């Protein structure tokens, strides 16, 4: 009954091999343009410059004023930027595999995203998701930027917190505001994908011997203004997927990210 023949062993190996390749396939996202082993690649840095309107975001100490006259200080500003795509003039695109970044205003090291292995070419646009796609919201244990230990995960109602803006305002009923935005299921799907334009027909030239840089500004005020004017007196919290998170996401999907300039380097 406990027979263990050579062919059983071989069979186990075969099964192990099969399931192994099966697993690997799930994780590898192939670029949409076929790239042979000889394809030359280059790199890109995306530099993210957190701002409040026209001034740099200084955490905790600096007081800012909204267009409607509310005062506020920011103590935390975090966001996921994921699923980066670069598009070429002919509409073809490069899709970065495993493309998940967590940017934290308090951690300068997270303000620069180093993108590697991009096929050389002339790119005319960039598209990315603010937040995390629905599939990864319900996947199992994750590493890197998606590690739940980063504090950007709701465990009682599963899902990543896409963006966090926290701080103080004298107009807020408790003196503080907390905007945690997430949700990936209708009717409260707060996943937003944006394509901030390259200005004046600028091109991103990926070459083997260049290290170009996209300089993007990220304006906190855009979360508080737009389709919904956020007043701290009446709208000081968002703690889960839901109507408030949707309003804030709709706001920031309109122009929070702006490509300021591209360095060819």
């Amino acid at each position, binding site marked *: *009954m406990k027979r263990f023949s050579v*062919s*059983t062993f071989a069979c186990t190996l075969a099964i192990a091999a099969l*399931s192994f390749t099966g697993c690997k396939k799930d994780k590898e996202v192939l670029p949409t343009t076929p790239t042979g082993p000889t394809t030359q690649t280059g790199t890109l840095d995306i530099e993210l410059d957190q701002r409040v309107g026209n001034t740099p975001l200084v955490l905790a100490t600096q007081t800012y004023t909204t267009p409607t006259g509310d005062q506020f200080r920011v103590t935390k500003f975090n966001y996921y930027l994921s699923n980066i795509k670069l598009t070429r003039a002919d509409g073809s695109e490069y899709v970065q595999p495993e493309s998940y970044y967590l940017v934290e205003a308090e951690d300068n090291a997270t303000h620069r995203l180093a993108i590697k292995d991009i096929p050389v070419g002339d790119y005319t646009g960039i598209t990315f998701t603010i937040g995390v796609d629905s599939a990864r919201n319900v996947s199992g244990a994750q590493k890197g930027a998606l590690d739940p*230990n980063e504090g950007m995960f709701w*465990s009682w109602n599963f899902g990543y917190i896409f963006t966090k803006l926290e701080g103080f305002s004298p107009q807020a009923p408790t003196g503080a505001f907390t905007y945690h935005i997430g949700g990936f299921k209708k009717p409260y799907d707060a996943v937003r994908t944006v394509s901030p334009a390259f200005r004046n027909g600028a091109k991103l030239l990926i070459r083997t011997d260049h290290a170009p840089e996209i300089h993007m500004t990220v304006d906190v005020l855009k979360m508080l203004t737009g389709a919904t004017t956020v007043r701290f007196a009446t709208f000081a919290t968002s703690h889960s997927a839901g*109507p408030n998170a949707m309003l804030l996401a709709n706001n920031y999907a309109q122009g929070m990210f702006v490509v300021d300039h591209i360095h060819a380097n």
Partner: protein
Amino acid sequence: MRRTIAASLAGGLAGLLLAACHADVTLPAEPVVPGAVLPANFPAPVYAPDANPPSAAAFALGRSLFYDERLSRDGSVSCGSCHQQAVAFADDGQRLSQGVRKQLGTRNTPALQNLRWKSEFFWDGGPKNIETLPLAPITNPVEMDETLANVLRKLNADTDYPRRFAQVFGSGPIDSYQLLRALAQFTAALTSANSRYDQAVRGEGGVVLTAAEQRGRTLVAQKCASCHATDLFTDETYRNNGLNASFEADSGRAHITSRVTDVGRFKVPSLRNVELTKPYMHDGRFATLEQVLAHYDHGVVASPTLDAALRPTSGPLGIPLTTAEQTDIIAFLRTLTDQDFIRDQRLAEQP
């Protein structure tokens, strides 16, 4: 008997992979990792073994973590404190869960069984993955009240865990990925599929149900299986089975979806091992199965989301059941008790 399971398995789900090797497959009588072989009478799993291939070392690590009180803030509560093997990993007789500093939760602790077959967990379906689920009890202030960062700090500072994790995952430090994958090795292994009912449907060892049990089985198939469906005895949907007229205390599924149409709906629980998992319902309101059946017979309360199955076109709400029928149903429900599961030493806390 286990060979039968293995053979039917080869013919079933894993059949494609195993087909070529069928004749030579002979599994050890007692596989090291429980639940690694899927029961023949179950549907396809959500979390298939190859998603986190069972290994003896990883399973044992997950088991240690499951029974380790250090996962809680003050070291007083482990997963196993609320989920006890003797009662199919429910909480024996406890109406609401009790966490650190003896704080009461808001819900009854469910059995942990056949979790591989679930895509959503809890009474409301909030957690959606078996691997990341433990984040909920660990961080819940009325359960373990701990942070993930603190748990990892404690594990990394331990004299033994770093070595055991390294053995499974390669050299450290222990991170959340390793912690959650190891815990899932244990929780996914909690397979209950060897009750007398299972043995009878699989035709094993000449087990047959008594006349009363058989009548109860037929009644459940007729009157309960629109919700308690398949051999898992749940269709994994959310339903309102008429416990309350309104649901201020716990809105159930609506807590997650914020939809009024989901108010009062709760996950249909499995009926496996139900003899052991008292008290019953999301708030543990019924102490006995007799009370549960009395509820279905004459206790169902109307509310806007009450399930259609409990709202007949004529006659009173609920499912009319004679006393004899109730007795037969309970006799059948007892056949779903899996003694092997609650006695399996491999699932118990190790000395």
